[in-house]
Protein backbone atom coordinates (compact mmCIF):
# COMPACT_ATOMS: atom_id res chain seq x y z
CA UNK A 1 0.00 0.00 0.00
CA UNK A 2 1.46 3.29 -1.11
CA UNK A 3 1.33 6.32 1.11
CA UNK A 4 0.52 9.20 -1.12
CA UNK A 5 1.41 12.59 0.22
CA UNK A 6 -1.21 15.20 -0.51
CA UNK A 7 -0.37 17.19 -3.60
CA UNK A 8 -0.41 20.31 -1.54
CA UNK A 9 -1.69 21.45 1.80
CA UNK A 10 -3.97 23.94 0.12
CA UNK A 11 -5.66 21.24 -1.89
CA UNK A 12 -6.38 19.07 1.14
CA UNK A 13 -7.63 22.11 3.00
CA UNK A 14 -9.96 22.82 0.12
CA UNK A 15 -11.18 19.22 0.26
CA UNK A 16 -11.73 19.50 4.00
CA UNK A 17 -13.79 22.67 3.72
CA UNK A 18 -15.73 21.14 0.84
CA UNK A 19 -16.57 17.98 2.79
CA UNK A 20 -17.56 19.98 5.84
CA UNK A 21 -19.86 22.24 3.83
CA UNK A 22 -21.35 19.18 2.15
CA UNK A 23 -22.12 17.70 5.58
CA UNK A 24 -23.80 20.91 6.73
CA UNK A 25 -25.77 21.02 3.49
CA UNK A 26 -26.85 17.38 3.90
CA UNK A 27 -27.98 18.00 7.47
CA UNK A 28 -29.95 21.06 6.37
CA UNK A 29 -31.55 19.15 3.50
CA UNK A 30 -32.42 16.26 5.84
CA UNK A 31 -33.95 18.73 8.29
CA UNK A 32 -36.24 19.99 5.53
CA UNK A 33 -37.60 16.51 4.90
CA UNK A 34 -39.72 14.32 7.12
CA UNK A 35 -43.08 12.71 7.49
CA UNK A 36 -44.51 16.07 8.59
CA UNK A 37 -44.25 19.16 6.38
CA UNK A 38 -42.84 22.16 8.19
CA UNK A 39 -43.24 25.73 7.01
CA UNK A 40 -39.78 26.98 7.81
CA UNK A 41 -40.45 30.69 7.57
CA UNK A 42 -43.10 30.59 10.21
CA UNK A 43 -42.60 27.75 12.66
CA UNK A 44 -45.30 27.42 15.25
CA UNK A 45 -44.63 25.92 18.63
CA UNK A 46 -45.61 22.43 17.56
CA UNK A 47 -43.38 22.56 14.50
CA UNK A 48 -40.50 23.83 16.59
CA UNK A 49 -40.82 20.78 18.82
CA UNK A 50 -40.85 18.49 15.79
CA UNK A 51 -37.77 20.13 14.32
CA UNK A 52 -35.67 20.60 17.46
CA UNK A 53 -36.77 17.71 19.69
CA UNK A 54 -37.52 14.95 17.20
CA UNK A 55 -36.01 15.53 13.78
CA UNK A 56 -32.70 17.27 14.49
CA UNK A 57 -31.56 15.01 17.36
CA UNK A 58 -32.14 12.04 15.08
CA UNK A 59 -30.27 13.59 12.15
CA UNK A 60 -27.35 14.64 14.35
CA UNK A 61 -27.21 11.24 16.03
CA UNK A 62 -27.21 9.65 12.58
CA UNK A 63 -24.27 11.87 11.63
CA UNK A 64 -22.36 10.78 14.75
CA UNK A 65 -23.12 7.11 14.16
CA UNK A 66 -21.93 7.40 10.56
CA UNK A 67 -18.78 9.23 11.60
CA UNK A 68 -18.03 6.67 14.33
CA UNK A 69 -18.41 3.66 12.08
CA UNK A 70 -16.41 5.19 9.24
CA UNK A 71 -13.63 6.23 11.64
CA UNK A 72 -13.44 2.74 13.07
CA UNK A 73 -13.43 1.22 9.58
CA UNK A 74 -10.74 3.55 8.24
CA UNK A 75 -8.37 3.03 11.15
CA UNK A 76 -8.88 -0.74 11.37
CA UNK A 77 -8.24 -1.10 7.64
CA UNK A 78 -4.90 0.70 7.93
CA UNK A 79 -3.89 -1.02 11.15
CA UNK A 80 -4.65 -4.52 9.89
CA UNK A 81 -3.54 -3.70 6.34
CA UNK A 82 -6.74 -5.22 5.13
CA UNK A 83 -9.27 -3.45 2.93
CA UNK A 84 -12.03 -5.71 4.27
CA UNK A 85 -11.53 -4.82 7.92
CA UNK A 86 -14.80 -3.32 9.01
CA UNK A 87 -16.53 -3.25 12.39
CA UNK A 88 -19.51 -5.16 11.02
CA UNK A 89 -17.49 -7.88 9.26
CA UNK A 90 -14.97 -8.25 12.07
CA UNK A 91 -17.61 -8.98 14.69
CA UNK A 92 -17.01 -5.73 16.59
CA UNK A 93 -20.54 -4.51 15.88
CA UNK A 94 -22.02 -7.81 16.97
CA UNK A 95 -19.94 -7.74 20.14
CA UNK A 96 -21.34 -4.32 20.90
CA UNK A 97 -24.86 -5.47 20.02
CA UNK A 98 -24.59 -8.43 22.39
CA UNK A 99 -23.28 -6.14 25.14
CA UNK A 100 -26.19 -3.76 24.64
CA UNK A 101 -28.66 -6.62 24.71
CA UNK A 102 -27.24 -8.03 27.93
CA UNK A 103 -27.43 -4.56 29.46
CA UNK A 104 -31.03 -4.33 28.31
CA UNK A 105 -31.93 -7.68 29.83
CA UNK A 106 -30.06 -7.40 33.12
CA UNK A 107 -29.96 -3.64 33.79
CA UNK A 108 -33.23 -2.55 32.22
CA UNK A 109 -33.59 0.53 34.40
CA UNK A 110 -29.99 1.61 34.17
CA UNK A 111 -29.71 3.25 30.76
CA UNK A 112 -26.05 4.21 31.06
CA UNK A 113 -25.16 0.52 31.23
CA UNK A 114 -25.91 0.10 27.51
CA UNK A 115 -23.05 2.12 25.97
CA UNK A 116 -20.68 0.81 28.65
CA UNK A 117 -21.51 -2.83 27.99
CA UNK A 118 -21.52 -2.15 24.23
CA UNK A 119 -17.97 -0.84 24.58
CA UNK A 120 -17.05 -3.92 26.59
CA UNK A 121 -18.56 -6.25 24.01
CA UNK A 122 -16.84 -4.46 21.15
CA UNK A 123 -13.46 -4.58 22.89
CA UNK A 124 -13.81 -8.24 23.70
CA UNK A 125 -14.81 -9.15 20.14
CA UNK A 126 -11.88 -7.15 18.73
CA UNK A 127 -9.47 -8.85 21.09
CA UNK A 128 -10.72 -12.34 20.26
CA UNK A 129 -10.65 -11.76 16.50
CA UNK A 130 -7.15 -10.36 16.73
CA UNK A 131 -5.88 -13.26 18.82
CA UNK A 132 -7.40 -15.76 16.42
CA UNK A 133 -5.94 -14.05 13.37
CA UNK A 134 -2.45 -13.70 14.78
CA UNK A 135 -0.05 -16.49 13.99
CA UNK A 136 3.65 -16.95 14.41
CA UNK A 137 4.21 -15.78 10.85
CA UNK A 138 2.36 -12.55 11.59
CA UNK A 139 -1.14 -11.71 10.57
CA UNK A 140 -2.50 -12.90 7.30
CA UNK A 141 -5.42 -11.39 5.50
CA UNK A 142 -7.51 -14.50 4.97
CA UNK A 143 -7.07 -15.57 8.56
CA UNK A 144 -8.24 -12.24 9.86
CA UNK A 145 -11.36 -12.12 7.72
CA UNK A 146 -12.20 -15.72 8.51
CA UNK A 147 -11.81 -15.12 12.25
CA UNK A 148 -14.04 -12.08 11.83
CA UNK A 149 -16.67 -14.14 10.07
CA UNK A 150 -16.49 -16.85 12.72
CA UNK A 151 -16.79 -14.43 15.62
CA UNK A 152 -19.60 -12.56 13.84
CA UNK A 153 -21.66 -15.69 13.23
CA UNK A 154 -20.95 -17.02 16.71
CA UNK A 155 -22.12 -13.78 18.30
CA UNK A 156 -25.16 -13.61 16.00
CA UNK A 157 -26.18 -17.07 17.11
CA UNK A 158 -25.97 -15.99 20.74
CA UNK A 159 -28.07 -12.94 19.88
CA UNK A 160 -30.64 -15.11 18.10
CA UNK A 161 -30.68 -17.46 21.07
CA UNK A 162 -31.24 -14.57 23.44
CA UNK A 163 -34.06 -13.08 21.36
CA UNK A 164 -35.72 -16.49 21.27
CA UNK A 165 -35.60 -16.68 25.03
CA UNK A 166 -37.03 -13.19 25.48
CA UNK A 167 -40.78 -12.83 25.25
CA UNK A 168 -42.50 -11.79 22.06
CA UNK A 169 -42.95 -8.12 22.92
CA UNK A 170 -39.27 -7.52 23.57
CA UNK A 171 -38.34 -9.55 20.54
CA UNK A 172 -40.11 -7.10 18.26
CA UNK A 173 -38.15 -4.10 19.46
CA UNK A 174 -34.89 -6.05 19.23
CA UNK A 175 -35.33 -7.36 15.72
CA UNK A 176 -35.91 -3.81 14.56
CA UNK A 177 -32.99 -2.51 16.54
CA UNK A 178 -30.63 -5.21 15.26
CA UNK A 179 -31.20 -4.00 11.71
CA UNK A 180 -30.05 -0.53 12.69
CA UNK A 181 -32.72 1.93 13.77
CA UNK A 182 -32.30 5.59 14.61
CA UNK A 183 -35.89 6.26 15.69
CA UNK A 184 -34.98 6.08 19.37
CA UNK A 185 -32.67 9.09 19.11
CA UNK A 186 -32.60 11.43 22.09
CA UNK A 187 -30.62 14.58 22.77
CA UNK A 188 -28.60 12.86 25.50
CA UNK A 189 -27.83 9.98 23.14
CA UNK A 190 -26.56 12.50 20.63
CA UNK A 191 -24.32 14.27 23.18
CA UNK A 192 -22.77 10.96 24.19
CA UNK A 193 -22.11 9.90 20.59
CA UNK A 194 -20.77 13.34 19.73
CA UNK A 195 -18.32 13.17 22.63
CA UNK A 196 -17.20 9.72 21.48
CA UNK A 197 -16.65 10.97 17.92
CA UNK A 198 -14.56 13.92 19.10
CA UNK A 199 -12.47 11.79 21.47
CA UNK A 200 -12.12 9.03 18.87
CA UNK A 201 -11.04 11.44 16.14
CA UNK A 202 -8.43 13.08 18.38
CA UNK A 203 -6.99 9.72 19.46
CA UNK A 204 -6.92 8.32 15.94
CA UNK A 205 -5.36 11.47 14.50
CA UNK A 206 -2.51 10.99 16.97
CA UNK A 207 -1.97 7.56 15.45
CA UNK A 208 -2.33 8.66 11.83
CA UNK A 209 1.40 9.01 11.13
CA UNK A 210 2.18 5.70 12.77
CA UNK A 211 -0.61 4.06 10.80
CA UNK A 212 0.86 5.44 7.58
CA UNK A 213 4.16 3.77 8.38
CA UNK A 214 2.47 0.55 9.46
CA UNK A 215 0.69 0.34 6.13
CA UNK A 216 4.07 -0.17 4.49
CA UNK A 217 4.75 -3.04 6.85
CA UNK A 218 5.05 -3.54 10.58
CA UNK A 219 8.74 -4.36 10.26
CA UNK A 220 9.48 -1.07 8.50
CA UNK A 221 7.31 0.86 10.89
CA UNK A 222 9.24 -0.65 13.78
CA UNK A 223 12.50 0.43 12.16
CA UNK A 224 11.12 3.95 11.93
CA UNK A 225 10.55 3.91 15.68
CA UNK A 226 6.80 3.19 15.78
CA UNK A 227 5.71 1.49 18.99
CA UNK A 228 3.58 -1.04 17.22
CA UNK A 229 2.02 -2.64 20.28
CA UNK A 230 0.90 0.67 21.69
CA UNK A 231 -0.53 1.94 18.40
CA UNK A 232 -2.43 -1.29 17.96
CA UNK A 233 -3.91 -1.13 21.44
CA UNK A 234 -4.84 2.54 21.02
CA UNK A 235 -6.58 1.96 17.69
CA UNK A 236 -8.44 -1.08 19.02
CA UNK A 237 -9.60 0.86 22.08
CA UNK A 238 -10.65 3.90 20.06
CA UNK A 239 -12.56 1.87 17.48
CA UNK A 240 -14.26 -0.16 20.23
CA UNK A 241 -15.33 3.10 21.88
CA UNK A 242 -16.68 4.44 18.61
CA UNK A 243 -18.47 1.26 17.57
CA UNK A 244 -19.77 0.68 21.11
CA UNK A 245 -21.45 4.07 21.38
CA UNK A 246 -22.75 3.89 17.81
CA UNK A 247 -24.30 0.45 18.29
CA UNK A 248 -25.76 1.30 21.71
CA UNK A 249 -27.49 4.27 20.09
CA UNK A 250 -28.71 2.74 16.86
CA UNK A 251 -28.09 -1.00 16.61
CA UNK A 252 -26.00 -2.49 13.81
CA UNK A 253 -25.83 -0.16 10.83
CA UNK A 254 -23.79 -2.15 8.34
CA UNK A 255 -21.43 -1.29 5.47
CA UNK A 256 -20.66 2.29 6.58
CA UNK A 257 -17.20 1.38 7.86
CA UNK A 258 -16.45 -0.53 4.68
CA UNK A 259 -17.75 1.69 1.91
CA UNK A 260 -16.93 5.14 3.22
CA UNK A 261 -13.14 4.81 3.79
CA UNK A 262 -12.83 3.13 0.38
CA UNK A 263 -14.55 6.00 -1.38
CA UNK A 264 -12.50 8.50 0.58
CA UNK A 265 -9.25 6.80 -0.45
CA UNK A 266 -10.36 6.80 -4.07
CA UNK A 267 -10.88 10.54 -3.81
CA UNK A 268 -7.86 11.69 -1.83
CA UNK A 269 -5.34 8.84 -1.66
CA UNK A 270 -4.40 6.79 1.36
CA UNK A 271 -2.64 9.21 3.71
CA UNK A 272 -4.31 8.51 7.05
CA UNK A 273 -3.90 12.09 8.21
CA UNK A 274 -6.54 12.88 5.62
CA UNK A 275 -8.39 9.58 5.34
CA UNK A 276 -9.34 9.55 9.03
CA UNK A 277 -11.00 12.98 9.29
CA UNK A 278 -12.53 12.79 5.82
CA UNK A 279 -13.97 9.35 6.53
CA UNK A 280 -15.67 10.81 9.59
CA UNK A 281 -17.27 13.56 7.51
CA UNK A 282 -18.22 11.26 4.63
CA UNK A 283 -19.60 8.60 7.00
CA UNK A 284 -21.78 11.23 8.64
CA UNK A 285 -23.09 12.34 5.23
CA UNK A 286 -23.78 8.74 4.14
CA UNK A 287 -25.80 7.79 7.23
CA UNK A 288 -27.76 11.06 7.29
CA UNK A 289 -28.74 10.48 3.66
CA UNK A 290 -29.64 6.84 4.26
CA UNK A 291 -31.73 7.72 7.31
CA UNK A 292 -33.54 10.44 5.39
CA UNK A 293 -34.61 7.75 2.93
CA UNK A 294 -35.59 5.49 5.85
CA UNK A 295 -37.70 8.27 7.39
CA UNK A 296 -39.45 9.45 4.25
CA UNK A 297 -39.70 6.60 1.73
CA UNK A 298 -42.92 5.11 3.12
CA UNK A 299 -43.95 7.91 5.50
CA UNK A 300 -45.65 7.99 7.94
CA UNK A 301 -44.26 4.50 8.35
CA UNK A 302 -40.52 3.96 8.76
CA UNK A 303 -37.80 1.63 7.54
CA UNK A 304 -34.73 0.57 9.52
CA UNK A 305 -31.74 2.65 8.40
CA UNK A 306 -29.45 -0.41 8.37
CA UNK A 307 -31.52 -1.90 5.55
CA UNK A 308 -30.90 1.23 3.46
CA UNK A 309 -27.14 1.37 4.12
CA UNK A 310 -26.82 -2.31 3.21
CA UNK A 311 -28.97 -1.81 0.12
CA UNK A 312 -26.64 0.93 -1.10
CA UNK A 313 -23.46 -0.47 0.43
CA UNK A 314 -23.41 -4.05 -0.82
CA UNK A 315 -23.71 -3.33 -4.57
CA UNK A 316 -21.34 -0.37 -4.27
CA UNK A 317 -18.80 -2.59 -2.58
CA UNK A 318 -19.00 -5.24 -5.27
CA UNK A 319 -18.55 -2.51 -7.87
CA UNK A 320 -15.47 -1.17 -6.10
CA UNK A 321 -14.04 -4.66 -5.75
CA UNK A 322 -14.39 -5.36 -9.46
CA UNK A 323 -12.97 -2.01 -10.43
CA UNK A 324 -9.84 -2.27 -8.30
Amino acid at each position, binding site marked *: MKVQSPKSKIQSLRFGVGFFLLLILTICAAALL*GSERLSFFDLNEQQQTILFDIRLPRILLGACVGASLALAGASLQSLLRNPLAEPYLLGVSNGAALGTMLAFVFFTQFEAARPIMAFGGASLATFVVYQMAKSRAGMN*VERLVLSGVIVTTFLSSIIVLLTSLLDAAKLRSFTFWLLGDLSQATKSGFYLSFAAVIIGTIILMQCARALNLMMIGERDAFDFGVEIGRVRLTVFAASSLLVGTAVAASGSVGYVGLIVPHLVRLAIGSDNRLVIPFSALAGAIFVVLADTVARTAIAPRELPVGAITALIGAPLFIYL*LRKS
Partner: protein
Amino acid sequence: MEKTTRQFFFASLHLFEKNLLFLLVFVCLLANCRTETVNPPINLPIREITDDLGRTVKLPETVDRAVSLAPNLTEIVFAVGAGDKLVGRTSYDNFPPEAQKIQTVGDTMNPNIENIIALKPQVVLVSTASQIETFTRQLESQNIAVFVTNPNSLDDIYKSIHQIGEIFGKTEKAREIVEGLSKRVAEVESEINKAKNIKVFLQISKEPLFTIGEDSFLTDLIARTGGVSVTANVATAYPKLSKETAFVLNPDVIILSESEDNLEPNDVFKNSPAVKNGKVFKINADIISRPSPRIVDALEQIARHLQK
Protein backbone atom coordinates in the same frame (compact mmCIF):
# COMPACT_ATOMS: atom_id res chain seq x y z
CA MET B 1 -3.74 -3.04 -1.53
CA GLU B 2 -5.38 -3.72 -4.87
CA LYS B 3 -3.55 -6.96 -5.27
CA THR B 4 -4.49 -8.33 -1.89
CA THR B 5 -8.09 -7.34 -2.42
CA ARG B 6 -8.29 -9.17 -5.67
CA GLN B 7 -6.47 -12.18 -4.29
CA PHE B 8 -8.81 -12.34 -1.40
CA PHE B 9 -11.80 -11.88 -3.59
CA PHE B 10 -10.87 -14.76 -5.83
CA ALA B 11 -9.80 -16.92 -2.94
CA SER B 12 -13.15 -16.46 -1.25
CA LEU B 13 -14.98 -16.92 -4.52
CA HIS B 14 -13.16 -20.17 -5.03
CA LEU B 15 -13.96 -21.32 -1.51
CA PHE B 16 -17.54 -20.36 -2.05
CA GLU B 17 -17.78 -22.29 -5.30
CA LYS B 18 -16.21 -25.35 -3.75
CA ASN B 19 -18.62 -25.27 -0.87
CA LEU B 20 -21.53 -24.59 -3.13
CA LEU B 21 -20.70 -27.62 -5.23
CA PHE B 22 -20.44 -29.75 -2.14
CA LEU B 23 -23.71 -28.40 -0.86
CA LEU B 24 -25.42 -29.07 -4.17
CA VAL B 25 -24.21 -32.66 -4.24
CA PHE B 26 -25.36 -33.09 -0.68
CA VAL B 27 -28.78 -31.65 -1.39
CA CYS B 28 -29.18 -33.89 -4.44
CA LEU B 29 -28.28 -36.92 -2.38
CA LEU B 30 -30.77 -35.93 0.26
CA ALA B 31 -33.45 -35.34 -2.32
CA ASN B 32 -32.86 -38.83 -3.73
CA CYS B 33 -33.09 -40.37 -0.30
CA ARG B 34 -36.59 -39.08 0.15
CA THR B 35 -38.93 -41.79 -0.97
CA GLU B 36 -42.30 -40.65 -2.20
CA THR B 37 -44.64 -41.82 0.48
CA VAL B 38 -48.19 -41.11 -0.49
CA ASN B 39 -50.38 -41.36 2.55
CA PRO B 40 -53.65 -43.10 1.88
CA PRO B 41 -56.49 -40.59 1.98
CA ILE B 42 -58.31 -40.86 5.25
CA ASN B 43 -61.90 -40.22 6.20
CA LEU B 44 -63.54 -39.87 2.80
CA PRO B 45 -65.75 -38.26 1.64
CA ILE B 46 -64.11 -34.88 1.62
CA ARG B 47 -65.72 -31.50 2.30
CA GLU B 48 -64.43 -28.17 1.05
CA ILE B 49 -64.20 -24.92 3.01
CA THR B 50 -62.81 -21.62 1.71
CA ASP B 51 -60.37 -19.89 4.03
CA ASP B 52 -59.51 -16.19 4.42
CA LEU B 53 -56.91 -16.32 1.66
CA GLY B 54 -59.54 -17.67 -0.73
CA ARG B 55 -57.97 -21.11 -0.80
CA THR B 56 -60.21 -24.14 -1.05
CA VAL B 57 -59.29 -26.36 1.87
CA LYS B 58 -60.24 -30.04 1.65
CA LEU B 59 -61.21 -31.59 4.95
CA PRO B 60 -62.35 -35.03 6.05
CA GLU B 61 -65.98 -35.39 7.13
CA THR B 62 -65.04 -35.31 10.79
CA VAL B 63 -61.97 -33.62 12.21
CA ASP B 64 -60.68 -35.08 15.45
CA ARG B 65 -57.03 -34.15 15.33
CA ALA B 66 -56.07 -30.51 14.81
CA VAL B 67 -53.12 -28.25 15.54
CA SER B 68 -53.57 -24.53 16.24
CA LEU B 69 -50.70 -22.18 15.47
CA ALA B 70 -52.08 -19.01 17.02
CA PRO B 71 -53.38 -18.22 20.51
CA ASN B 72 -56.60 -16.65 19.20
CA LEU B 73 -57.41 -19.77 17.19
CA THR B 74 -56.83 -21.99 20.21
CA GLU B 75 -59.26 -19.79 22.14
CA ILE B 76 -61.87 -20.10 19.40
CA VAL B 77 -61.47 -23.88 19.19
CA PHE B 78 -62.06 -24.16 22.94
CA ALA B 79 -64.96 -21.71 22.77
CA VAL B 80 -66.82 -23.78 20.17
CA GLY B 81 -66.29 -26.82 22.37
CA ALA B 82 -63.67 -28.61 20.31
CA GLY B 83 -60.76 -28.19 22.71
CA ASP B 84 -60.47 -31.97 23.05
CA LYS B 85 -59.70 -32.19 19.32
CA LEU B 86 -56.57 -30.06 19.65
CA VAL B 87 -53.36 -32.10 19.71
CA GLY B 88 -50.88 -29.24 19.29
CA ARG B 89 -50.61 -25.53 20.11
CA THR B 90 -47.98 -22.76 20.26
CA SER B 91 -46.04 -21.68 23.30
CA TYR B 92 -48.04 -18.43 23.42
CA ASP B 93 -51.40 -20.17 23.85
CA ASN B 94 -52.26 -19.66 27.53
CA PHE B 95 -56.04 -19.41 27.44
CA PRO B 96 -58.19 -21.16 28.47
CA PRO B 97 -56.02 -22.76 31.18
CA GLU B 98 -56.86 -26.26 29.86
CA ALA B 99 -55.05 -25.32 26.63
CA GLN B 100 -51.75 -25.36 28.46
CA LYS B 101 -51.98 -29.13 28.87
CA ILE B 102 -51.73 -29.57 25.08
CA GLN B 103 -48.34 -30.27 23.54
CA THR B 104 -46.53 -27.22 22.10
CA VAL B 105 -45.14 -27.23 18.57
CA GLY B 106 -43.00 -24.08 18.71
CA ASP B 107 -44.27 -20.52 18.47
CA THR B 108 -46.39 -18.75 15.87
CA MET B 109 -43.44 -17.49 13.83
CA ASN B 110 -41.32 -20.65 14.12
CA PRO B 111 -43.54 -23.72 14.27
CA ASN B 112 -41.70 -27.01 14.28
CA ILE B 113 -42.82 -28.83 11.17
CA GLU B 114 -41.57 -32.22 12.33
CA ASN B 115 -43.48 -31.97 15.59
CA ILE B 116 -46.61 -31.07 13.68
CA ILE B 117 -46.31 -33.97 11.25
CA ALA B 118 -45.58 -36.39 14.10
CA LEU B 119 -48.87 -35.38 15.74
CA LYS B 120 -50.73 -36.57 12.59
CA PRO B 121 -53.29 -33.76 12.53
CA GLN B 122 -55.95 -33.61 9.82
CA VAL B 123 -55.90 -29.85 9.80
CA VAL B 124 -53.54 -27.11 10.93
CA LEU B 125 -55.14 -23.77 11.82
CA VAL B 126 -52.97 -20.78 10.95
CA SER B 127 -53.31 -17.06 11.44
CA THR B 128 -51.65 -15.21 8.52
CA ALA B 129 -48.11 -16.12 9.44
CA SER B 130 -44.95 -15.60 7.52
CA GLN B 131 -43.38 -18.40 5.50
CA ILE B 132 -46.83 -19.72 4.90
CA GLU B 133 -45.97 -20.87 1.35
CA THR B 134 -43.27 -23.43 2.07
CA PHE B 135 -45.03 -24.40 5.24
CA THR B 136 -48.30 -25.15 3.48
CA ARG B 137 -46.65 -27.16 0.74
CA GLN B 138 -44.78 -29.31 3.26
CA LEU B 139 -47.90 -30.05 5.27
CA GLU B 140 -50.15 -30.64 2.28
CA SER B 141 -47.70 -33.18 0.88
CA GLN B 142 -48.41 -35.11 4.10
CA ASN B 143 -52.17 -34.87 3.54
CA ILE B 144 -52.53 -32.29 6.28
CA ALA B 145 -54.92 -29.47 5.41
CA VAL B 146 -53.89 -25.90 6.23
CA PHE B 147 -56.63 -23.42 7.08
CA VAL B 148 -55.66 -19.73 7.16
CA THR B 149 -57.56 -17.00 8.98
CA ASN B 150 -56.92 -13.28 8.54
CA PRO B 151 -59.51 -11.20 10.39
CA ASN B 152 -59.44 -7.44 9.68
CA SER B 153 -62.64 -6.49 11.48
CA LEU B 154 -65.05 -7.64 14.16
CA ASP B 155 -67.24 -9.25 11.48
CA ASP B 156 -64.18 -11.15 10.26
CA ILE B 157 -63.64 -12.45 13.79
CA TYR B 158 -67.26 -13.70 13.81
CA LYS B 159 -66.50 -15.33 10.47
CA SER B 160 -63.43 -17.08 11.97
CA ILE B 161 -65.63 -18.44 14.76
CA HIS B 162 -68.19 -19.73 12.23
CA GLN B 163 -65.45 -21.27 10.08
CA ILE B 164 -63.80 -23.06 12.99
CA GLY B 165 -67.22 -24.22 14.17
CA GLU B 166 -67.81 -25.66 10.72
CA ILE B 167 -64.43 -27.40 10.64
CA PHE B 168 -65.18 -29.26 13.88
CA GLY B 169 -68.87 -29.81 13.16
CA LYS B 170 -69.91 -27.34 15.87
CA THR B 171 -71.80 -24.88 13.70
CA GLU B 172 -74.63 -24.60 16.23
CA LYS B 173 -72.32 -23.74 19.10
CA ALA B 174 -70.42 -21.25 16.91
CA ARG B 175 -73.69 -19.52 16.00
CA GLU B 176 -74.63 -19.30 19.67
CA ILE B 177 -71.29 -17.71 20.53
CA VAL B 178 -71.49 -15.18 17.73
CA GLU B 179 -75.06 -14.33 18.72
CA GLY B 180 -74.00 -13.80 22.30
CA LEU B 181 -71.08 -11.63 21.24
CA SER B 182 -73.13 -9.51 18.82
CA LYS B 183 -75.70 -8.97 21.55
CA ARG B 184 -72.99 -7.63 23.89
CA VAL B 185 -71.62 -5.45 21.09
CA ALA B 186 -75.10 -4.13 20.29
CA GLU B 187 -75.58 -3.27 23.94
CA VAL B 188 -72.32 -1.30 23.97
CA GLU B 189 -73.26 0.43 20.74
CA SER B 190 -76.66 1.44 22.08
CA GLU B 191 -75.13 3.01 25.15
CA ILE B 192 -72.42 5.05 23.52
CA ASN B 193 -72.57 8.38 21.81
CA LYS B 194 -71.14 7.69 18.39
CA ALA B 195 -71.12 11.34 17.39
CA LYS B 196 -68.35 12.04 19.86
CA ASN B 197 -65.59 10.71 17.60
CA ILE B 198 -62.97 10.64 20.32
CA LYS B 199 -59.46 10.58 18.88
CA VAL B 200 -57.80 7.38 20.04
CA PHE B 201 -54.18 6.30 19.68
CA LEU B 202 -53.53 2.63 20.30
CA GLN B 203 -49.91 1.99 21.21
CA ILE B 204 -48.64 -1.53 20.58
CA SER B 205 -45.04 -0.85 21.60
CA LYS B 206 -43.40 2.24 23.07
CA GLU B 207 -39.89 1.99 21.56
CA PRO B 208 -39.82 1.57 18.61
CA LEU B 209 -43.24 3.11 18.25
CA PHE B 210 -45.67 0.59 16.80
CA THR B 211 -49.38 1.21 16.40
CA ILE B 212 -52.42 -0.08 14.52
CA GLY B 213 -53.10 0.74 10.86
CA GLU B 214 -55.95 0.38 8.41
CA ASP B 215 -55.80 -3.42 8.24
CA SER B 216 -56.06 -4.05 11.97
CA PHE B 217 -59.33 -5.31 13.44
CA LEU B 218 -58.64 -2.92 16.32
CA THR B 219 -59.28 0.05 14.01
CA ASP B 220 -62.79 -1.34 13.49
CA LEU B 221 -63.15 -2.05 17.21
CA ILE B 222 -62.36 1.57 18.14
CA ALA B 223 -64.80 2.85 15.52
CA ARG B 224 -67.57 0.77 17.12
CA THR B 225 -67.01 2.27 20.54
CA GLY B 226 -67.52 5.91 19.61
CA GLY B 227 -63.88 6.60 18.90
CA VAL B 228 -61.77 7.01 15.81
CA SER B 229 -58.26 5.65 15.50
CA VAL B 230 -55.92 8.52 14.62
CA THR B 231 -53.84 6.09 12.58
CA ALA B 232 -56.76 4.52 10.71
CA ASN B 233 -55.33 5.65 7.35
CA VAL B 234 -51.83 4.31 7.81
CA ALA B 235 -51.11 1.36 5.53
CA THR B 236 -50.67 -2.20 6.88
CA ALA B 237 -52.01 -3.65 10.13
CA TYR B 238 -49.23 -2.85 12.62
CA PRO B 239 -47.00 -0.06 11.26
CA LYS B 240 -43.93 1.46 12.87
CA LEU B 241 -44.94 5.09 13.03
CA SER B 242 -42.80 8.18 12.51
CA LYS B 243 -42.53 10.13 15.76
CA GLU B 244 -43.09 13.40 13.93
CA THR B 245 -46.42 12.15 12.70
CA ALA B 246 -47.24 10.73 16.12
CA PHE B 247 -46.49 14.11 17.65
CA VAL B 248 -49.10 15.97 15.59
CA LEU B 249 -51.84 13.36 16.11
CA ASN B 250 -52.86 14.87 19.47
CA PRO B 251 -55.02 11.95 20.65
CA ASP B 252 -57.66 12.50 23.32
CA VAL B 253 -57.21 8.98 24.60
CA ILE B 254 -54.24 6.63 24.48
CA ILE B 255 -54.79 2.90 24.88
CA LEU B 256 -51.78 0.75 25.71
CA SER B 257 -51.68 -2.90 24.82
CA GLU B 258 -50.29 -3.82 28.21
CA SER B 259 -47.03 -5.71 28.08
CA GLU B 260 -43.65 -5.40 29.75
CA ASP B 261 -42.24 -2.93 27.23
CA ASN B 262 -45.42 -0.94 26.78
CA LEU B 263 -46.51 0.40 30.15
CA GLU B 264 -46.53 4.11 29.35
CA PRO B 265 -47.10 6.32 26.29
CA ASN B 266 -44.11 7.27 24.14
CA ASP B 267 -42.47 10.58 25.07
CA VAL B 268 -43.81 12.26 21.93
CA PHE B 269 -47.27 12.22 23.54
CA LYS B 270 -46.11 14.22 26.56
CA ASN B 271 -48.12 17.27 25.52
CA SER B 272 -51.10 15.46 24.03
CA PRO B 273 -54.57 16.01 25.53
CA ALA B 274 -54.62 12.30 26.46
CA VAL B 275 -51.58 12.54 28.73
CA LYS B 276 -52.45 16.00 30.08
CA ASN B 277 -55.96 14.88 31.06
CA GLY B 278 -54.83 11.53 32.37
CA LYS B 279 -56.70 9.62 29.66
CA VAL B 280 -54.20 6.81 29.22
CA PHE B 281 -55.57 3.30 29.67
CA LYS B 282 -54.03 -0.14 29.67
CA ILE B 283 -55.74 -3.23 28.36
CA ASN B 284 -54.15 -6.64 28.78
CA ALA B 285 -52.22 -7.47 25.60
CA ASP B 286 -53.59 -11.03 25.51
CA ILE B 287 -57.14 -9.72 25.35
CA ILE B 288 -56.68 -6.78 23.01
CA SER B 289 -54.27 -8.36 20.55
CA ARG B 290 -56.08 -11.63 19.90
CA PRO B 291 -58.98 -11.77 17.45
CA SER B 292 -60.84 -14.32 19.59
CA PRO B 293 -64.21 -14.24 21.42
CA ARG B 294 -62.47 -12.35 24.23
CA ILE B 295 -62.04 -9.38 21.88
CA VAL B 296 -65.52 -8.29 22.96
CA ASP B 297 -64.12 -7.95 26.51
CA ALA B 298 -61.59 -5.54 25.01
CA LEU B 299 -64.37 -3.73 23.16
CA GLU B 300 -66.34 -3.29 26.38
CA GLN B 301 -63.26 -2.00 28.19
CA ILE B 302 -62.45 0.47 25.40
CA ALA B 303 -66.04 1.70 25.39
CA ARG B 304 -65.98 2.17 29.15
CA HIS B 305 -62.74 4.17 28.96
CA LEU B 306 -63.95 6.33 26.08
CA GLN B 307 -67.23 7.19 27.75
CA LYS B 308 -65.57 8.23 30.99
